[in-house]
């Protein structure tokens, strides 16, 4: 094994991790604020991919405008889902919301299959995104760099928003304690809706990036990345934005190195490895890498 081989695998892992990170942020935000594992999150990721396909391939929008459309589409579906399925059952046991989110996932997937079929579709991107850039002993594609940069920029913007704006503070307060936040005059309905909107918008952008990198999307594409992003969120420490990002990169890296460094017959165990890692992390560090340990996870 050469250094270049290791380096290229590390880059592979980082790119995959960046996409996990973006999906994981949404998971983490929503979990942080309403203690809900939103199973439909992976399908919103797929919605984003199709919104991108629609705006680039059908409506022929320029790329930056397409990103905007994707963000809006994700936010809109997120809001819709929150309004229809989660708001009416707020206050119910956690499990209720979890099941509702599974139901929403099934509805979204079947609607997609009924209207646009489960056929995978080609996702064409501008040629310059596919160009190879030499980087020391290896070469990297522009799209890979773009993915990592975009993930980091969006994360930084989000962290800034949550930390330094009034709305961001209100969101944190809501996450900390519903009741007290409400007493302080914070409109918690709006905060929860906002968390859904932002989280879903980021997942939708991840869908766009996924399409751009792999060139193919399908209505059922969200299931596995969605679950893995959840694992990433847990590894990082659920509820923490920077934790979700860290978790995403760690998981992407671990997954690729698992496949890349072990003999090839282990490659097919990569999903098993991801979930085994989840169980392991939860046992050793129940609060994740940088999660807070304020609550007993009951």
């Amino acid at each position, binding site marked *: *094994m*050469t250094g*270049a*081989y290791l380096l*290229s*695998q590390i880059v*592979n892992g980082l*790119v*995959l991790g960046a996409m996990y990170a973006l999906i994981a942020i949404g998971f983490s935000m929503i979990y942080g604020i309403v203690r809900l594992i939103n199973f439909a999150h992976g399908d919103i990721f797929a919605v984003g991919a199709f919104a991108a*396909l*629609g705006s680039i*391939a*059908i409506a022929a929008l320029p790329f930056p405008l397409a990103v905007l459309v994707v963000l809006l589409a994700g936010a809109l579906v997120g809001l819709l889902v929150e309004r229809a399925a989660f708001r009416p059952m707020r206050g119910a046991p956690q499990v209720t919301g979890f099941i509702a989110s599974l139901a929403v996932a099934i509805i979204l*997937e*079947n609607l997609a*299959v*009924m*209207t*646009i*079929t*489960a*056929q*995978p*579709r*080609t*996702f*064409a991107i501008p*040629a310059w995104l*596919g160009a*190879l850039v030499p980087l020391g002993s290896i*070469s990297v*594609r522009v799209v890979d760099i773009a993915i990592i940069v975009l993930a980091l920029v969006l994360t930084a913007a989000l962290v800034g928003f949550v930390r330094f704006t009034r709305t961001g503070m209100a969101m944190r307060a809501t996450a900390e304690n519903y009741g007290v936040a409400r007493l302080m005059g914070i409109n918690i309905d709006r905060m929860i809706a906002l968390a859904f909107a932002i989280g879903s918008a980021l997942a939708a952008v991840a869908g766009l990036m*996924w399409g751009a990198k*792999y*060139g*193919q999307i*399908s209505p*059922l*594409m969200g*299931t*596995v*990345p969605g679950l893995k992003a959840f694992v990433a969120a847990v590894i990082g420490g659920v509820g923490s934005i920077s934790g979700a990002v860290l978790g995403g990169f760690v998981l992407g890296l671990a997954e*690729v*190195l698992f*496949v*890349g460094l072990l003999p*090839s*017959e282990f*490659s*097919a165990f*990569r*999903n098993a490895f991801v979930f085994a890692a989840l169980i392991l992390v939860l046992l050793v560090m129940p609060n994740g890498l940088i999660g807070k340990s304020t609550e007993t996870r009951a």
Partner: protein
Amino acid sequence: MRNWISGLAAVAAAGLLSTAFILPGAAQDKEPINVAALYNLTSGGLSSLDAPSFNGMKLKAKMINDAGGILGGRKIEITAIDTKNDTRETATAAQRAVAIKGLVAGIGQSDSTFALAAAPLFQSAGIPFVTSGATSPDLPDMVGDQMFLVPFGDDVQAHAMAEYAYNTLGLRNVAIWTDNAMDYTTGLTRYFTERFTQLGGKVALEDVYMTTDQDFSALVSRLQSTTGVDAVFASSGPDTAGIIVKQIREAGITLPILAGDGFDTDLVLSVPGEALAKDVYFTTHAYAGIETGPAQEFRAAYQAEYNTAPENAFAALGYDAMGLVADAITRAGSTEPAAVSKALAETKAYEGVTGTVAFPEGKRVPNKPVAIIKVGGGKMNFETTVTPKG
């Protein structure tokens, strides 16, 4: 891209069509001929093979009915049951199907595991089951005398590719990527390796993945760092075909890519794009690259019916499965399952879109020609046809 609209239109059309099939037609006085279709139409990966197959099958039935039906004007009536990518659903669907009064035959499935969930129930009911897309050559032995394949067996296409690679392309050392989550792909790899090493070739690297994987970067890097590889044999289904070519080529690897009929999908061209989709060779059912005869007629009819080109070879196979069954019914002159099954087994030369179907004595896997396609210049180019020795 009008696929969304056309998708909706197709759903609506399918709705109208199947209502028309199920409700007793007004002008239809003769007793219909009942055929069951068992396909994974929703939920999961197989629907990208099964849905086109089902469309092909419906198209053929419609064309036969429009042309006046068979057995003196009797119309074919399809009862479609969605098997939902679930073996339990498949088994109960089969049970429902065989309970249909006067059922002549069942058609369906593109994966051996699912064919094996359905076919035994047809076998014990004494009704023929014709799989349009499951290619394991062992199926008839596992199920019994009511099990028929429309496609060639995987052994045939894998051997054809191994010979083509070794003799024509002069390749000696291959890397093999296998989708471990499908029986089709693991079988293909086994048969390819068997013949390729027999010829004197070597397998330099074996890597495996699962159907749901989309990130092949780790496998690509390993391939790149392995020396002495002349080509990659990608044993893949259609869902990962385009992605694999794209990711291998994008890394700057120019080795020839070899594959089976899982690569017979437009995704192989469109996902990598014209510049990267080159030096890809795959075996498929002999309609690709043929611009005349039944193949052309099929393409045009499919385009007209569904407003899209056939998605992959499975559409043609579904079309042929329906045609083959109708042909057997005509030859049997009866809708008795036993008679139809006998006629099916005696098929000597059914002119299908995917080649001439002939069942050798006592075998229910057809000897059909294998087409070898080379992808390049934004097109699927027909290279040659290999007819296996029967």
